[in-house]
Structure formats: C-alpha cells, structure tokens
C-alpha cells in the first residue's frame, strides 16, 4: 500500500523566498511602512510648513547618547537644514518607500531618522528593544529584501537602459 507523508507546511502555505506570499507580504510591509513616514512628514508640512522648529530642539536635547555630541551639534548648527528637512525628507522617504522608488536610498534615510528617534526617545525602561528600534529594523529589512522590486516601481526602473548601463544604481534602487 502506498503511503504519503503529510507535511501541512510544505504545500501552498509554505513561505518560499521569492514565492508569491513572500512578494505579497514584502509589498504590504513596504506600503504600510511608507505610509507611516509619509503621514508623519506631510502632517508636519501641513501644520508647520518648512519651519519645523521642534526638530533642532529635539536634537539639542540628545545629550549623553551613543551618538556622542553629534546630534547636539547638528541641532545647534544645522537648524537651517533640519527645520525644512524633517518634514520634507519624511514625506519623500514615505513616498519613495510606498511606491517603491529608490527604495534602498529611501530606506537608508528612514533608518537614519529612526536611529535618531531610537536613541533620542531613550526611555529603555523595558530594555533597548523598543518600537523605535523595530521601526529602524523595518527599514533595514526593506533595504535588505530590495522591497521595491515587488509590486514597486523600482522593478520597472531597474529595467531601464540607464540603470543597466550603471548597475551600481541597483544599490540605491531595489
């Protein structure tokens, strides 16, 4: 009598990297993460325009962190960039991630922001793993998985002759 080993995880529910479920979920993750930053940025733009004064103040208060004197120096000397930069870059990063355009570059920007939030919001009463670190890891994950290639415009952009002539660009796209 023929027998067949039953493997409930080995059939259509298997999470195969490159398979349809992986692509689908990476795209879902990308759009929601992008919306998160887009919402944060665009609401600042609506409320404060390009003069987000809390940004430099926040950074000036980042004393005694792992980033040393860098954020404080930035808050004191780069206010001209931070005030318009925070709402503008958050919005652009969100759009890039949502639509999968320059995904890896946008994810780097998101990870940079989240690093500042993670150490700047420093409460750590429940350990160093906080929601901010999870947000940071989300951006790194999107970059590592080249999330823009799954139902994102980077899949189209990477097929362009210009990108094919300059494969280095795939480290910023993807």
């Amino acid at each position, binding site marked *: 009598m023929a027998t067949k080993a039953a493997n409930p995880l080995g059939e259509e529910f298997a999470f195969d990297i490159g398979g349809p479920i992986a692509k689908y979920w990476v795209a879902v993750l990308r759009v929601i993460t992008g919306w998160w930053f887009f919402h944060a940025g665009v609401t600042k733009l609506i409320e404060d325009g390009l003069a987000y004064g809390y940004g430099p103040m926040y950074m000036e208060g980042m004393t005694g962190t*792992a980033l040393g004197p860098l954020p404080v120096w930035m808050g004191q000397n780069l206010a001209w960039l931070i005030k318009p930069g925070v709402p503008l870059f958050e919005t652009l990063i969100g759009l890039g991630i949502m639509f999968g355009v320059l995904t890896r570059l946008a994810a780097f920007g998101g990870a940079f922001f989240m690093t500042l939030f993670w150490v700047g919001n420093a409460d750590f009463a429940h350990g160093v793993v906080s929601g901010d670190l999870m947000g940071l890891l989300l951006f790194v994950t999107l970059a590592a998985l080249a999330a823009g290639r799954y139902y994102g415009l980077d899949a189209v952009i990477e097929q362009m002759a210009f990108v094919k002539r300059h494969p280095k660009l795939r*480290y910023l796209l993807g």
Partner: protein
Amino acid sequence: MQETIIDTIDKAAMALGAGLMFLGIVVLGIVEILAGPPYGAAPMTNDAGDIIATPMFDPALRTGLVIAGLVVLLVWQGYRMAATPDQEQTDQQVEMAAD
C-alpha cells in the same frame, strides 16, 4: 550587481555586523537580567523619583554597539556597490562540451 556572498570580506562583515547587534541587544541583555534589577536599561526610581538602582550597562553602550553593527553593514554595502563594475552586464551562457 553582486548577487552572491562569496568573499571573505562579505562573510566577515555579515558576522561582525550581526555580532555587534546581537551583543548589544541579546548578550548584554542576558547579563543585565542575571545582574538583577533593573532588568531594563533605565535606572529604577522610587515613588519620590530618586534613583534606587542603575543598570549594569549604560544604554549608550548597548545602543552604540547596535549602531556600530548597522554602520558595519552600511559600509559593507558601500564596499559591494563600489566593487560592482559600472558597466552594462553582459552575462552570456556559453555551451561547454561535456567531458
């Protein structure tokens, strides 16, 4: 674009990057728990707000290790990007006679 991980530098960067992150989050987290309260990474205070116990490791050290790990991964990707020849890929399959 390099799609494969073959280089010793690749392997070393992956090990160092993940190793620093695990050290900052997991390893020092375990030591922190074994060292007793506070189990988190922030000082414990009483109702009056006075600090009654401090963590064994400064959170700046632990977050710094994680950031260092991320920087290693970023530099590694920069290295891979720089190592990618800036010319059109002309991958061709060449038929070889079987031995």
